[in-house]
Structure formats: C-alpha cells, structure tokens
C-alpha cells in the first residue's frame, strides 16, 4: 500500500510533501514519492492534491488488485474515485457535514 504520483499532472505546489506525516514526499520541482515502502496509507496527500495527481493503491501483499484511488472536492462533498484495472470507474460521495452512521 502506497501512493503513486502522476508527474505529468503534478503542478509542483508542494502541498502533499508539506502534509505527509512521514516526510516521505520530496520536491524536485515536482513531487516525488521518495520512500514508497514507508507509506502509512493515511491518504492525507491524496486529499490535499488540487489536481488529482496523487493516487493511492493497495499493495499486492495485502490483497490489492491494481486499482488507483483519488478524491475530488466540491463544497462539502468529498468524492472518492476508484480507477479499476479494467478501465471502469467507481465513485462514492461523502458529505462532510454528515456523520458516520456506525
């Protein structure tokens, strides 16, 4: 489990590097995931990225099958987007003003 950074999409704003709790992302003009095996999977960087360049995935050793996940934000709605290996897309909307039911 770790993140992939799409260097084509990255605009070099540095927000992901700033918030990573492990200081794992470094800037060389653009963001670079320097220590992929040290990622905790908190997805802080994913939620900070303004251009959806940071994507989260599960490692094969914990059952991952290759999907990439990122978030989009519109007002109070946080949309989690999953790009599956077969090209299909799944989305789940979370209203930040609504509590968990469980």
């Amino acid at each position: 489990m770790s993140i992939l950074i799409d260097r084509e999409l990255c605009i070099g704003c540095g927000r992901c590097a700033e918030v990573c709790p492990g200081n794992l992302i470094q800037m060389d003009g653009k963001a670079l995931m320097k220590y992929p095996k040290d990622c905790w999977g908190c997805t802080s960087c994913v939620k900070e990225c303004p251009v959806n360049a940071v994507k989260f995935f599960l490692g094969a050793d914990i059952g991952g099958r290759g999907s990439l996940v990122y978030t989009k934000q519109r007002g109070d709605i946080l949309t989690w987007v999953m790009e599956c290996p077969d090209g299909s897309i799944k989305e789940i909307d979370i209203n930040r003003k609504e509590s968990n039911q469980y």
Partner: protein
Amino acid sequence: MELQKLHTDVLIIGGGTAGCYAALTIAEHAPDARVLICEKANIRRSGCLAAGVNALNAYITEGRTPQDYVDHARQDAAEIVRGDLLLTMSEQLNAMTAHLERLGLVILKDEKGNYVTRGKWNLKINGENIKPLLADAVNRLEHVTVMDHVNMTDLSVSGDQICGAFGCSVEKEIFYSIRAKAVIICTGGAAGLYQPNHPGFSRHKMWYPPFNTGAGYAMGIRAGAEMTTLEMRFIALRCKDTIAPTGTLAQGVGAKQVNALGEVYEDKYGLTTSQRVHGTVMEDLSGRGPCYLKTEGITPQQDSSLMKAYLNMAPAQTIKWLESGKMPSQQNVEIEGTEPYIVGGHTASGYWVDTNRETTIHGLFAAGDVAGGCPQKYVTGALAEGKIAALSALNYMRSHPAPEISDAEISEQMASAEKFLHQKQARFDCEQLEEAMQTVMDHYAGGIGANYRYNEKQLAIAEERISQLETLSDTLSAANMHELMRIYELRERLTVCKSLIGHLRARKETRWHCFAEHLDYPERDDANYLCYINSKLENGRIKIIRRRLVREEEHYEHPDRP
C-alpha cells in the same frame, strides 16, 4: 550544521491531539504566554489522527458518571491503572467533546438534538478532518508559534529540572537548542518495535502511525525520568490486511467474532480488549482459524454506510471491499491481531506522572499516548490531558524562570548529531538494523510470530541482542537530514525496547493475555503483582521500582520531591 538557539515560555513537543489542545488551553488562560510547538511533520496531518477517526470512544453518556468510566477502564486493565488520572480525565471528557463540536467536528444527533451514542461510551462522528480542525484553531493563535518538520530528540535537564530540548530539522541542516520555562511532551506512543503483520512492501500498513517511534519515551528514559507499566503492551484486533478498525463492525452492526466453523467464540474468552485478541489467537492455535467478524446477512443499506464510515478513517478497507467485489453483507470480514505497540492512550504505559501530569523531571509535563497510568483516553481523553498538563505547566512557569542551557551541553548534543552526518557508511544501514530489531522482538519478546508469548530465557536473549544493536547503531551514517531522522528513530525504538524488556522481565505473572503473556508464570498473581512496575535508567541499566496502586480519592505527588 547551523545552530539556532531559541527560547520560549512553554515548549510543546509534538503537535498531535494532546499537543494542539495544550496550546489552545494556554492561549485561553494566559494569552501573553509564548508557546512553541515543535512537530516532526505538519500539525495539519500529524500523529495518529492523520487519516481521521470514525468515533469518539470516550464520552460519558446519559445516566453514567465519570466514576463509571474509571471503573470500566480499571476492569479492562485488571486493576493496573491510576484512579486519580482516570478520574481527572473522565471529568473533562464531555467538555472536550463540546469544544470539538464548536471547532467544527460533525457529531451525529437525534431529532431532539442529543448526541447519538454507540455502545456505552461512544459517539458517532465524521472525523475525517479532525486534525485540520485542530490545526486551524492553533494556527489562529497569536502567541503560539508552530515549527513543522522539526524532530526533537533530547531533553535538556539540570539536576531534576527541565531546561528545554534539542532537535534537528528533517529537511535543512539546522540544529535547534530550545530553552523553555516549562515543557509539555506529547509525542505519542511507539510503533515499529516489533515485526509488523506484513513485513514486505506494506510493512507500514499498521494500526498505529509508523512515524510515532517512541521519541518521547526515549527522551525521558535517557534523561532519567521514571516510566510506568511499559509491559502492558497494546495489541489491536483489526480487519485482516488493511488493519482497519473492528469496532465499527462489532458495535456498529453488531458483528460477533466467529471462527472458521462459524461458531461465536468471543463469549468463551471474555470481552476485554486483551481477551478478544487472546480468543482469536487460541482459536487459530486450535485449528479453528481463520477468525472473522460475522457480517454476512447485514443489509445493502448497512454495506453502503460502512463503506462511507471506513473512507472517513481507514480508506484501505473500503477499497478492499470494492476491489474484491464482495461486500461485508456477502462475506464475513477476516480479523487478526496486530504486532504489539507501546501506547498510553490505550493501555497504562508511559511517563510516571503526578495527578497534575508532571513527570519526575521538574517542569516536564506529559499528555496523551506518552503519559502512563491512564488507559482508554482515545481522542477526548488526550485532549483532557493536554488541558490538565497545560494548566499545570502555566502554574509551574510562573514561579520558575527558565534555566540556562550550557554551551558545553549544546556542543555535545550537536556533535552527536553531526557524527552521523560525517562518519563513513559502516557495514550495516539503518533499515537492516531496524529489521534486525523487529525480528529479535518478534522471536524473543512476544511478537506475532511467537503468538505474543515469551519466557525468561527468551527475554534474556532479547535483551542481549537489543544491546548489540544499540552498539551497532552508533556506526550508522546519514547522507541527508531525512536519513538522520531515521537513525534517531531507530535509536529511540531501541531505547524503548530495552526498557520494555526490563518491564516484561519484572512482571512475573500473566495478568493480561497477549499484552503480557509470560509462559514461565502463566497465572495472575495478586499477592505479588497488584502494583505498578516502574523503571528508571541508571548508569545504563534499567532499575525496576515497584509502587503501590493509587486510587481516585488521592491527589498523588511524587514522593521523592523536595
């Protein structure tokens, strides 16, 4: 390295839950006091709440009292708790909850506007943004300065009085010497001591943040502070692979623990935290594994709510369900115990403090996961301790001017950091030594591979091997400041391991299955061990101190204090 000398009224080491709340408390009660928070990452997403949290687990629900919470925590820990700390914390839990709501945290309410409770002590929330909310509140404070990406590594102590602390930037070649009238330590607990569930690519997919390396414990141990109950390790029962929480399933949809035959086994072993883990280990060893939470048969509506709840705290679990195409209603969720952690927010491990949260070092206060004696703090309890420690620190600083830190001490501390930047790469690198430490702890000090059990002989081997690794860690070399941070983290963990092994050896009984399961002494022994096991590092050796239990009627003060 460049040297920067700073001074402040109150230094807060660690800007997690407790640290942020300590700063908010000081700003409210002494608006002119200068506060400096040093944080290894960025307070917006640092500490164990980086990903969010999906419930408040410590709230006094209607019809219950703070004393009930004390009784509950005492029972769960089989008596080894501090009544005074639990009660003073419990009395603040609901005020902390109300403050979180004022800061913007969403808490579920019924149509009458009352909080909706989950179980006896829990509230349902949307806690994905809990850390940004706290950070925003802190960043609005006028006299509070936050220094992100600064890793504090050592305390400065003169006699038994705190003078400040030392640390390094994790990015630039800067060494900090920070003088303070009072210091509040809230660095969190220790993960990464033991081999994790998945030692390969996903080695950091663990319950507790892998970046909480026990820095606060290690700083205190090295400075001669007294520690308590490190032997009460914490092992979480989690969803297999994703290490996502199980409480959401157990309490949210009433899922029971079942074995591979579909039999409910949780009532066979008991329902305390350690008993739930123990039962799962025993079912596995009896050939009835793997174990599950029985979710089959819940409704599609519940599936959908669960997917959202996990995205707000542990997104990996939702992704796992989506990728497998099998929802919890269609397939039970497999569970497993994690590797052991030292974490005073869940068990009673940490600094030995008085009722005001002052450690045995005068002017050093502890709050949150680093503070001992007070288990089951969770989020609201960490906030409460941040508040209590902050008020005590303010009181202390009014009558104690900041002592000087001598130039000789600064030079010595800085030289020990620079050594790693200058010396040539030795035979082993940091990662190899970290893996070696985790393997030793796994095999000889009761890790997952040993079903959390150990005996005297094994602990003696663990002690010897950890000591060898400490010596080897002196030879490490850092090419940059990130690598220097990693060397310090390894050395912190080794220091904690050494003390932990001393504690495991000292409690010659089995009071908590899995948390401290001593095969040479498999029974609970109230005649000899209804007491705290405390320790101090003296001349490089762990000295064990036994102390009597403290009840909630008592205001505890350190006995040896002038």
